[in-house]
C-alpha cells in the first residue's frame, strides 16, 4: 500500500518539472533504506555510509567518463566496488560492537573522503568529475523512469530481506549477539552479509546520483551526509523500511520546499532529528507497526 502511495507521489512528480528533485529523493531513499538495513535492522550503527555511496558514485563516474563504459555495466560495477569495500569493512570489524563499530565506520568514512579529496591524479580532487554521460540519451523522463526502476528493484530486494526469517535473524543480532551465536548462527557471517548487501545498494545509489547530477565531488560524501542518512533512518523509525523511505522523502523534499531558507538545511536536519529522538523515538512509522502491516499482508495472501 505504501508502495502504491509512493508510486502515486512519483507519478505526480513525473508530470512536473521536478525530475532532478525526484531522482535525488529516490537516491536518498535507497541510501536510507540500505542504512536502515545495517543500522536499524541489524543494529550496526554506521557513521560512514556516505563513504560507500561515494565509492559507488566515483566508480561509475570514472568508468563512464574515462573509459566510456555503458551505464548498464557501471551500475552493477559501482555496487560491487562498494560492496567489496563494505564486506572488507565488516570483515575487519566483525568483532567490534556498539560504539566501537560506529567509530570504525566513522574512521573508514573519513578515510575514504580524504582519499577522494587528495588523490588528485585519479579523482581530480576537490574539482570533482564533470561531464558524466546521462543514463540514456533519451528524454529526462525516461532517465527518471530508469532510476525508479532500479529503486523499485532494490526496494523489493530489501523488503524481502527485512521481512523474512533472515530479517528476524538480523533483528536477533541487533538485540543480542551472544544469543544469536547460541542459536547456531554465525554473527560474523551475518554482519558481513548485511554490510555487503547494504553497501551494494548504497553503491548503486551513488551511481544513480552520478548519472542524474552528472557531476560528483568529494563534498557530497562528507561526514555530514552520513549523518543526514542516519537522521533519515531515525526519523522514519529504526528498523522500519517504509519509515526510512519516508524519512528520506521528508529530509530531501522539506529543505527543497523551504528553499528560501538556503543555509538552514543542516539546521533543519539537526532540529528534526533532535525533535524525533526526544518526542517520537519510534519514528514516523515504528518498526513494530511496519512489521505488523507487512505480516498481516502476508497472512491475507496466504488465506486467499
Amino acid at each position, binding site marked *: 500500500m505504501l508502495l502504491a502511495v509512493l508510486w502515486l507521489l512519483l507519478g505526480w512528480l513525473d508530470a512536473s518539472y521536478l525530475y532532478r528533485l525526484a531522482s535525488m529523493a529516490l537516491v536518498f531513499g535507497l541510501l536510507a533504506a540500505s542504512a536502515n538495513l545495517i543500522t536499524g535492522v541489524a*543494529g550496526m*550503527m554506521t557513521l560512514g555510509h556516505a563513504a560507500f555511496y561515494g565509492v559507488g558514485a566515483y566508480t561509475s563516474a570514472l568508468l563512464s567518463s574515462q573509459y566510456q563504459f555503458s551505464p548498464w555495466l557501471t551500475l552493477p560495477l559501482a555496487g560491487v566496488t562498494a560492496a567489496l569495500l563494505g564486506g572488507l569493512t565488516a570483515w*575487519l*570489524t566483525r*568483532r*567490534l560492537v*556498539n*560504539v*566501537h563499530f*560506529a*567509530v*570504525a565506520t*566513522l*574512521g*573508514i568514512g*573519513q*578515510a575514504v573522503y*580524504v*582519499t577522494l*579529496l*587528495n588523490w588528485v591524479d585519479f579523482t581530480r580532487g576537490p574539482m570533482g568529475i564533470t561531464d558524466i554521460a546521462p543514463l540514456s540519451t533519451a528524454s529526462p523522463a525516461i532517465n527518471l523512469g530508469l532510476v525508479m526502476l532500479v529503486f523499485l528493484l532494490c526496494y523489493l530486494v530489501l523488503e524481502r530481506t527485512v521481512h523474512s526469517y533472515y530479517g528476524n535473524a538480523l533483528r536477533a543480532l*541487533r*538485540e543480542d549477539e551472544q544469543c544469536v551465536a547460541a542459536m547456531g548462527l554465525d554473527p560474523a557471517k551475518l554482519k558481513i552479509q548485511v554490510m555487503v548487501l547494504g553497501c551494494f545498494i548504497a553503491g548503486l545509489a551513488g551511481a544513480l546520483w552520478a548519472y542524474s547530477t552528472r557531476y560528483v565531488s568529494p563534498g557530497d560524501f562528507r*561526514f*555530514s551526509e552520513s*549523518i543526514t542518512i*542516519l*537522521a533519515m533512518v*531515525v526519523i522514519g523509525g*529504526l528498523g522500519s523500511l517504509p519509515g526510512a523511505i519516508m524519512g528520506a522523502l521528508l529530509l530531501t523534499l522539506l529543505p527543497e520546499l523551504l528553499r528560501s531558507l538556503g*543555509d*538552514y538545511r*543542516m*539546521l533543519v*536536519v*539537526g*532540529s528534526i*532529528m*533532535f525533535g524525533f*529522538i*526526544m518526542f517520537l*523515538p519510534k519514528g514516523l512509522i515504528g518498526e513494530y507497526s511496519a512489521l505488523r502491516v507487512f505480516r498481516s499482508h502476508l497472512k491475507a495472501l496466504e488465506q486467499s
Partner: protein
Amino acid sequence: MLDFFDVFLVQQLLNGLAQGLVYALIAIGFTLIFGVLNVVNFAHGEIYMLGAFAGLLAIQLLAPPAFAVLLLVAAAGLVLGVLLERVAFRPFRRFNDEASLKSKALREATLLSSLAISIITRELMQLYVGADMQSIPQAYLLMTPIQLGPLSIASGQVLIFVTALLMFLLLQWLLFRTRLGLSIRAVSNNRLGALHVGINVNHIIIATFAIGSLMGAVSGIVVGLYSGNIFPQMGFSPGIKAFVAMVMGGLDSIPGAVISAIVLGLCEALSTDFVSQGWSELISYGLLLITLLYFPRGLFGKKVERV
C-alpha cells in the same frame, strides 16, 4: 645532543607535540564524560568551539587581562556543560533500572541526541557569526617566538603545554584525592551501586559534565589564542581526533587518551615530511583502525577477563 638530529626534525616534533596536546586537551574532557555515562558526547567539539567564541566575546566586550579571559571562559564552559546535560542527556536518564542502563536503544538515542545538538549548535553559530574565521585581537595573540638555540617555540605552544599539564594534574587530583572524585569514580564504575550507597547520581553526572565542558571550553580559547582564528567549524576536526585518541586510549583511561593524542599529533607532524598535508589526515584514521583491530580494548584500556 641536538647535533645528532636534524633541527628541522626536532622542530617538527615540537609542533607535533603542541598539536597532540591540543587533541589531548579535548580528549581529557571527552574521556571523563564517556567514563561516567558510557555514551559518546558528540557535542564536546562544539563546547570547545563555543569556549573559543566566549573568549572572543569577552575580549571584545571587556578587554580583560588574558588570565581573566581564561576564567570567564571556564565559567562559560561550566554553564554550557550543565545546559548540554540538561538538554541532550537528562531526558534519557528517566530510568535507573539495570535493563535500561544496559539498553542499547537508550544509549544510541543519547548518542544521536548529542549529535543533533552538535549540528544545531554549529549551524546556529554559523548563521549568527558567519562561517568565516574570526580573528583574535593582536594584543591577545600568543605568537611571540621564543628561541631555544636553533629551535623556536611560539608562546602559545608553551601555554598549551602548561594548560594540558595543569588540567591533567588537576583532574587526577580531583579524581583521586577529593570526595567528588571518589563519587565520580563510583558512578563511572557502577551506577546502580553508587545509587545504593547513597550517592546522588544525577548531581555527580551534572558535575562531570560541568568539569568536562569547562576543560573543553578552556582548551578552545587556548587554541584560539595560539592559532589566532576561530570559526564555527573549528570543533569538528579536533573533536574527531580527540575521539580517535579516546578510543585508542581505551575509552575510559584519561592518561591513555592523553598519550594517544600526543602520538597522533606527532605522527601527523612527522608524516608531513613524506606526504602532503591532506594525506596526513589519513594517518590518524589508519591508526584508529589498527587499534580497533588489534587492541580492541585500546592501548591503555583495562584488561578484561575473556570468557
